[in-house]
């Protein structure tokens, strides 16, 4: 092939590529903008220039955001709450998914239907009553007041994702294990869970992102500043440093980074999970 490199076929590809790149830049630009001004002095933001790079990077903004935004304490809180919730959600969802897809009992379709109903109910309708209901157990302003509803609301999606995959595992898996005299408590974690691993990972990542980013329940049920989760750091800043935008921007970057890292590490699994969900309908 020695034709001109810019044939009409190539031209189409170039135009398509350019379009996709421009779109990607537009998508990323708001993030770049925030990161850029997080390294400047707040005054630079008010300059007339459309966009300017920092003359001297103000890394000090990050130190202040980290300290005054209580990023460390908030991160510890978030990690504890989210790890507990993700672990509990995936175990409970796996159990329900197994019982409803592979065991034989009358109500299994009803139970699976009830569990999927959880995806339809907006969490916001539980904010008001749970404020009273959790209060009756002295749970308000404790991390348990977030872990329990996080698990309750994420079980639905996780169960459906895992159930979809369990349906494709041959029943012979359990049968041969039973022949060897194994019990459920060893078959489930040792034989079934590994076979459903991709769906469990997908469920865990989507649960992680949902819980890690959750704001309104954390804002409603927690009152003590030292117990708050990471997203609240930004709100804290908007109150205290209302006019110090550069430090606010630094705080936003610090809050965004962990979710971005998890996403880049596991993006393959997220995409795969979405495919599974979409194909299943």
């Amino acid at each position, binding site marked *: 092939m020695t034709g001109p490199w810019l044939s009409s076929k190539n031209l189409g590809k170039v135009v398509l590529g350019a379009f996709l790149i421009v779109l990607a830049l537009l998508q990323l630009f708001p993030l770049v903008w925030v990161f850029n001004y997080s390294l400047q002095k707040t005054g630079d933001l008010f300059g007339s220039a459309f966009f300017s790079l920092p003359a001297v990077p103000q890394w000090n903004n990050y130190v202040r955001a980290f300290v005054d935004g209580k990023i460390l304490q908030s991160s510890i809180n978030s990690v504890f709450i989210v790890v507990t919730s993700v672990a509990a959600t995936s175990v409970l969802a796996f159990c329900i998914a197994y019982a409803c897809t592979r065991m034989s009992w009358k109500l299994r379709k009803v139970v699976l239907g*009830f569990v999927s109903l959880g995806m339809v109910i907006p969490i916001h309708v539980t904010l008001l009553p749970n404020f009273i209901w959790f209060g009756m157990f002295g749970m308000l302003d404790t991390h348990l007041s977030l872990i329990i509803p996080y698990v*309750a609301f994420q079980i639905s999606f996780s169960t459906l994702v895992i159930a979809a995959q369990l349906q494709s595992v041959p029943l012979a898996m359990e049968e041969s294990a039973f022949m060897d005299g194994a019990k459920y408590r060893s078959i489930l974690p040792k034989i079934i869970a590994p076979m459903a691993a991709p769906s469990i990972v997908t469920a865990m990542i989507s649960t992680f992102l949902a819980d890690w980013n959750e704001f309104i329940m954390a804002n409603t049920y927690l009152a003590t500043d030292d117990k708050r989760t990471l*997203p609240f750091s930004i709100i804290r800043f908007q109150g205290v440093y209302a006019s110090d935008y550069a430090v606010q921007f630094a705080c936003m970057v610090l809050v965004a980074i962990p979710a971005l890292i998890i996403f880049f590490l596991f993006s393959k699994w997220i995409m795969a999970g979405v495919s599974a969900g979409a194909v299943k309908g």
Partner: protein
Amino acid sequence: MAETKPLSGGFVSLERVPMKRLFNNRPVIAALVVPGLLIMVFAMIIPIGFSVYYSLTNWSGIGDFQWVGFANYVEILTADPTFWRSLANVGILILVTVFLQNTAAFALAALLARLTPRWSRFFRTIYFIPAVLSVVVITALWGNIMNPTFGILNKFLSLFTTDPVTTSWLGKPATALGSVVWIIVWQGFGWALLFFYSALMTLPVELEEAAKIDGAGRWMTYTRVILPYLFPVISAIIVIDVISSLKQMEIIFLSTGGGPGDLTQFTAVYLYQKAFVASQYGYGNGLSILFVVVAVGLTLLVQRIFRTEGELA
């Protein structure tokens, strides 16, 4: 005889007798199912029961209260324009996501499907980034971009005008709702794109080739062959759009708080403000209950509509 039976109705067939007792072990079933269901009942179902109870009172949130029967419901349905406004805004959001966001996402997914797997994954990853950020980050981000004094949106528009643009995008009645909807769509777009891309990946190659052999152009192929083929998946996406539109709350709560006036009010924000800001806890619970009814009813309705049409096709 030892063949594994094919899947029936999505459930594993359990007809062979020797194993039946094991798969029918009630204590095991209970141990697997009850803990998860208990948590859902505790944090989701009982609270809704509480809401029903408080919605029949005039409780402010502290102190004593009286039983008022259905007075809150009557007032919400007959004398509360903000409630209807908030539902209308949810409806607008549903229409925007179903028609505008989905069309754009489908078109982009179709373009990405033509790339090599590596490049398409690269772009899908970038376009998905907003979907993994916290709503707090996203709202603060766009609040700053749309800021009247230093926001980059106004600075950008000012490049094309003689006078500097000083629009308060989230504060001006004419632009507030559009701006809020834009933020929500910006965040949700990555999901829509992924759904459509995954759907396109399930297309059999022969489908497009057969259409080409029959002389169909690209437009015809998409509208007459591919879209009808994907109808079941698209209807599932639309159901998801309806559910997620109903669940939008934080972005509005953090950006406009429903204002100016009640122009950007959404039901989930409104019930929260009534209970916790306006100290009308009983009334807020009434809004909650009506909202559950609308959310579940609308979802079932949309599911029903698409199921019947799916059978007709």
